């Protein structure tokens, strides 16, 4: 059939290799991409309603069930929000242990995305099983990296999926110095594997696409932000988590059970690895910065397909950071700060592997939750993912239908959307009429 002109519809119902379920649809009329929709049909689970009437101490465990891939992000944002409401600042040892746990989640989630979800696209494979038939060593390296991330989560958090050791104020029990120092050996290996990952993905072929993103990410003064910081944007915003929560307006549209977020109700934006890297690349420690330079990344990356390289660089960073936290580990004693509830509103924001995640809670004097608001990364990114789809489809109209569909799927997977988080179903449909 002829491509590039006439009417085409690319449609994928049941987008694969993303977390959760949704669909994609792109319509092409007379060689021009028209309607583009990332539809999220994942059935709603109403977390914000379930939380009302629960105790403030329950938020980390309940919200972690929003997402099995990034439960730590939910736990950390919930803890930060509750501690802000109760005006508690935890000590440096607790912060360091939280950061170590969070590094474990970044390693696990990024290794999953790079190797099992994203890389097969670049190598023309349906999945990592097919990839393993061609390059078993690469897949084994990815699985070993992932295992190390899970191991960190198990030692610090007590379990890899939905860790049990996290509480508002800190931890139930600080892991022993012996258990933590035993992480050094697998983390050394993981750091080398992460460096090899950067080299591997840097050699992939990338479509020559750049988008004009409005980036939003957390920033800290002295380090690459993960577990805290102020939300900064590429157009000059510099916001506390509470100010961010006030500025972000979510819109409910008919085609999606995820709410669409805009800054000030107007501007779409992008969070996640591209945003973090582009806003904070100067904060990367030397090893990760050198790996980025070696992979040909400049200080800013606007090519969504290269997000796999940025994720690989963040893998190097997370392994390196985790190693340094392991080497300097001192068990917090007590393992948690005492948190006394007070009637207040608190916001907390942290960097989930796939982007910024913020929570805002109103609690009363008894610690009962009155209102809850949870804004996951994919809700914030959905409008930008649709813009990407439009641009990528428009620039790829010379491809045949099957390849165009695959390219469109890839345009969505570039951003590692988590539809379970966003509400939670992703299907891809590309319509060319």
């Amino acid at each position: 059939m002829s491509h590039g002109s006439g009417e085409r519809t690319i449609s994928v119902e049941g987008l694969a290799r993303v977390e959760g379920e949704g669909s994609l649809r792109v319509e092409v009329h007379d060689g021009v991409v028209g309607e583009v929709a990332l539809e999220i049909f994942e059935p709603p689970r109403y977390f914000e309603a379930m939380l009302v009437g629960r105790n403030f101490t329950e938020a980390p465990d309940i919200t972690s069930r929003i997402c099995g891939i990034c439960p730590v992000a939910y736990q950390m944002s919930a803890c930060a929000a509750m501690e802000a409401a109760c005006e508690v600042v935890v000590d440096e040892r607790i912060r360091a242990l939280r950061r170590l746990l969070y590094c474990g989640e970044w390693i696990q989630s990024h290794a999953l995305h790079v190797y099992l979800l994203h890389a097969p696209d670049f190598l023309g494979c349906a999945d990592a099983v097919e990839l393993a038939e061609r390059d078993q060593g690469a897949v084994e390296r990815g699985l070993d990296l992932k295992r190390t991330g899970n191991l960190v989560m198990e030692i610090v958090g007590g379990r890899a999926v939905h860790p049990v050791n996290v509480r508002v104020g800190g931890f139930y029990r600080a892991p022993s110095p012996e258990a933590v120092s035993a992480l050094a050996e697998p983390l050394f290996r993981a750091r080398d594997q992460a460096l090899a990952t950067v080299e591997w993905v840097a050699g992939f072929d990338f479509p020559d696409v750049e988008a004009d993103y409005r980036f939003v990410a957390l920033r800290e003064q002295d380090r690459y932000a993960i577990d805290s910081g102020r939300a900064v944007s590429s157009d000059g915003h510099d916001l506390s988590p509470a100010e961010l929560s006030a500025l972000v307006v979510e819109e409910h549209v008919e085609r999606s059970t995820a709410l669409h977020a805009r800054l000030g109700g107007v501007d779409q934006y992008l969070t996640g690895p591209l945003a973090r890297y582009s806003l904070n690349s100067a904060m990367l420690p030397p090893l990760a910065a050198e790996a980025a330079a070696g992979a040909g990344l400049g200080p800013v990356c606007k090519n969504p397909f290269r997000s796999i390289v940025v994720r690989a660089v963040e893998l190097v960073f997370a392994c390196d950071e985790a190693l340094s936290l392991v080497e300097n580990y001192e068990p917090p004693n007590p393992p948690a700060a005492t948190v006394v509830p007070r009637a207040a509103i608190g916001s907390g924001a942290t960097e989930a592997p796939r982007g910024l995640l913020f929570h805002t809670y109103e609690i009363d004097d008894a610690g009962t939750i009155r209102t809850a608001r949870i804004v996951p990364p994919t809700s914030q990114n959905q409008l930008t993912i649709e813009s990407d789809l439009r641009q990528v489809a428009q620039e790829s109209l010379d491809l045949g239908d099957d390849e165009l569909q695959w390219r469109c799927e890839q345009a969505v997977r570039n951003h590692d959307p988590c539809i379970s988080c966003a509400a939670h179903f992703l299907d891809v449909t590309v319509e060319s009429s």
Partner: protein
Amino acid sequence: MSPSARPTVAVWKFASCDGCQLSILDCEEELLQLVGTVRIAHFLEMSRASAKGPYDLSLVEGSITTEDDAKRIKQVRRMSRKLIAIGACATAGGIQGLRNFAASGEYASVVYAHPEYIKALDTSTPISAHVPVDLELYGCPIDRFQLLGVLTAILAGRRPRVPGHSVCQECKGRGTVCLLVSRGTPCMGPVTRAGCGAICPGVDRGCFGCFGPTDTANTASLAGQFRGEGLTPVDTSRLFRTFNAAAPAFMAESVAQGGAPPVAVSSPGNDAEGDR
């Protein structure tokens, strides 16, 4: 299962967090061996390739919360020789089962500006409320070693075993001092099914019931003990009302402690009979 070919496995998702599916991918050491032993015919989170059924075995994650899903689970059942429900959502309705205790439409109006756009049922129900299930694997999330054990048993033609005893026995096994007895820490261990390895008491935390009720849970006795430790009925009701809130034993105790009773009980196609 046909002895000549690798058995086919399909993985399905309903309302859930993906964590139980992730547990399959978390079998890092065994994953490549597993995919050499069985053919993963449908697993959207892992592959864009999908083979048509029927399948020898389906693993089903998530609960039924929409009319479409109530229909889809029947199709899945028809395509599957064996069906295993995995995780608290699929076996008890999950954390989203809390909606079963709220007035119809109340939850949607809290979260969405236009609840009229939302097509969801008033209830979150387990897979077994809709179709016959060959085996239930509990947990929020499931334990990946238990999953591997069950898959191995099925592949070998053995009957898989899922523990029916309590977390208490796991604490004894690992030598963890009883938190409830020694410190008065509220712990759901005595009424909660084993399978996690007693990881919460292992970090000085009371069990919070991820694996749901044991086969013979004496919840009233435990609730009495909680009262003796100074918990209010509201606190006790909340302890029974989390990830397995709609599991019958936990639901009954949470209601006995004064929690709101389940409001909506009907869901479409709620006939487990004759739909294979």
